[in-house]
């Protein structure tokens, strides 16, 4: 429960046609990610006339969300505060929902070469992962062609909360099954059992009993 697996999101279908060079793949990364978090592709509106969000003025264009023109727009009030406007969910004409969001600074996820940005909506802290659509597709194609023996290469399990390792249940070289307990970490008065996300064998163990771990620390690699 405490570790984030490598991102193996439910990926949108890889298109065969040309990819809009301005399109952006937006998903959830970092420690806030939950299993099943979706990714979307955002493209600038085909009409270039008015496309850039300016301070205090809503962008009047219709960007494409997963290929569909959607009446969403963003107003920015400086670096941190912004307001998203989208059509009301009930589809009634002319009704919109405005939601205030807070932007954090952009960081680079060095392992994946993507950009991460914390966005706070309604008190929910989401690490949004941003990447050009073209690059995201290349990455997916490379992984798919990567071979048949292992499911997508080694899985790196990293800590998503800090704590202390109280038990290591496997050794390098051990075969593990999906769901098998591999580590126990104590954090905030609770014992958290870490389980293998899929079957494989333990390639590397990055911690020992007694170690204090921080968010992002590499715990176990399974291939």
């Amino acid at each position: 429960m405490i570790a984030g697996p490598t991102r193996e999101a439910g990926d949108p279908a890889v298109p065969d046609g040309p990819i809009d060079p301005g399109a952006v793949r937006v998903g959830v990364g970092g420690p806030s990610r939950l299993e099943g978090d979706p990714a979307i592709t955002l493209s600038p509106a085909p009409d270039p006339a008015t496309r850039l969000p300016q301070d205090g003025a809503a962008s009047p264009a219709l960007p494409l969300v997963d290929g569909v023109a959607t009446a969403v727009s963003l107003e920015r009030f400086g670096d941190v505060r912004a307001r998203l406007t989208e059509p009301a969910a009930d589809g009634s004409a002319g009704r919109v929902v405005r939601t205030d969001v807070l932007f954090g600074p952009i960081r680079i996820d060095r392992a994946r070469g993507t950009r991460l940005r914390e966005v706070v909506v309604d008190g929910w802290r989401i690490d949004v992962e941003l990447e050009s659509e073209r690059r995201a597709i290349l990455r997916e194609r490379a992984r798919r062609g990567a071979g048949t023996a292992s499911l997508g290469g080694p899985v790196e399990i990293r800590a998503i909360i800090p704590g202390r390792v109280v038990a290591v249940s496997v050794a390098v070289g051990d075969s593990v099954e999906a769901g098998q307990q591999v580590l126990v970490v104590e954090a905030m008065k609770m014992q958290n059992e870490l389980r293998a996300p899929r079957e494989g064998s333990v390639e590397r163990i990055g911690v020992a009993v007694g170690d204090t771990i921080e968010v992002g620390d590499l715990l176990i690699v399974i291939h």
Partner: protein
Amino acid sequence: MTPPFSRILVANRGEIALRIIRAAHELGMQAVAVYSDADATAAHVRAADAAVRLGPAAPADSYLRIDAVVAAALESGAEAVHPGYGFLSERAAFAQAVADAGLVFVGPSPTAIAALGDKLAARRTARAVGVPHVPGTLEPAPVDRPDQLEGVLAAAEAVGFPLLVKAAAGGGGRGMRRVVAADELPAALIAGSREAAAAFGDGSVYLEREIMPARHIEVQLLGDATGQVIALGERDCSTQRRHQKLIEEAPAPGLSEIERRRLHAMAVRLGVAAGLQNAATVEFLYDRDGNFWFLEVNTRLQVEHPVTELVAGLDIVAEQFRLAGGAPLSQGALAAAERAARPTSHAIEVRISAEDPARVFAPAPGRITRWAMPAGPGVRVDTAVEVGDRIPAEYDPLICKLIVHAADRPAALRRLRRALDETEIGGIQTTLPFHRAMLGEPGFRDASGLSTTWVDAHWDGPASRARAVRVAALAAGLAELGETAAGGPGGTPPRTGQDDARHASGPPSRDGSVPAWRAAGRALAADRWPR
């Protein structure tokens, strides 16, 4: 007015330590803080006049070390010790150690703590003075004793199923087991007793009828050395999850003046019988038929004391210091007790914790990057956390109490909504989205849904988060489109961190060529800042 002491020590950390230090300073007393290595630069340490290190971060090595805390008080010249809540606040041995060292313990006497901390003794005292306790047994149940099984089963039948096996030595749901039928009872007794022994060092358990649905209503008491005990008012703390309170309010909605008088009188009667001094809280369950059932007494200051302070117009921590100094109940306190059955305002507190409401409230420690708290009329924020603080994993995840005060409950709800809208927290996940969602729930807004089982029935963390994920993705994506467009299509790499909107000078054209005005701008820039 002479301060009751010249120097006191706060045996706690975080928001309550800061709260106590503030009260001490306002009374003209100096305050000494104690800290673990994790809290060396914490707000409560900086607010104090002196500070003493206790040890490493783990509570057992620091805040729970009776010897170290008493030594800190003696070496720093403190005359009194305030225990706050949690940690050592309800350990009779600590109160005794403080007294033995010639210092004053700011709280009830060690005997009262011991007598009321044992829930069975408290229930027997309640029965003796005619305060109805939650129906159940009054003696520890025999555990793993097949020879006494018949007696236990008979007692259980008298209580009625479903019933709860509960720990006599502590609360918070630990040692508790729900029993639906007689054949489950022996195993439940063993399991509950084992958990209670691990949590409290005492495996005594007893049987209690399950009252469901019920509201959790508690009464704030103050007592002085003359034996006088008064009730300042009651609080409703029904919005809980796994026996942890999330939202509290004062007064309890929907009670009549007669019901309040009856409730307060029962609590006072119990307090007098137990010889209660200083501050304590008597907890009751209030069932659908309008009956109050005594649950237990907490012989300490409670987390949610601010809602009573605001409605009663009193500083309870200041009153605690005065009472500990030997003064009788103050005029202000007596007047507040007179008014308690007819409250003329309403206060609501929400507990903001570093927990993830989409991961079954699992702890979510981390470092705070943004911390903007609400303000304006009727808003009070009790916190010791600041931007840049790292939330330590060793302690309770409660980091902030947001309290609002208004003329009545509807006004308080509107004020709370405003305050929550103004609250901005970045860098860690907190329970803030939970509180925002609860305010929208009709059952909470009209108080019809108040019950201790309500949260589990009404809160869907993942669903609430899913909507936020979509908005976050759209917002970040649109911002990214704006930034990459400003940098040029596929050309200049996007700038990090800065909002480019101010510098954006126009859209690139569809075929990728750069319009003349943009090229001119870049050329101009190159001239000014040649690389």
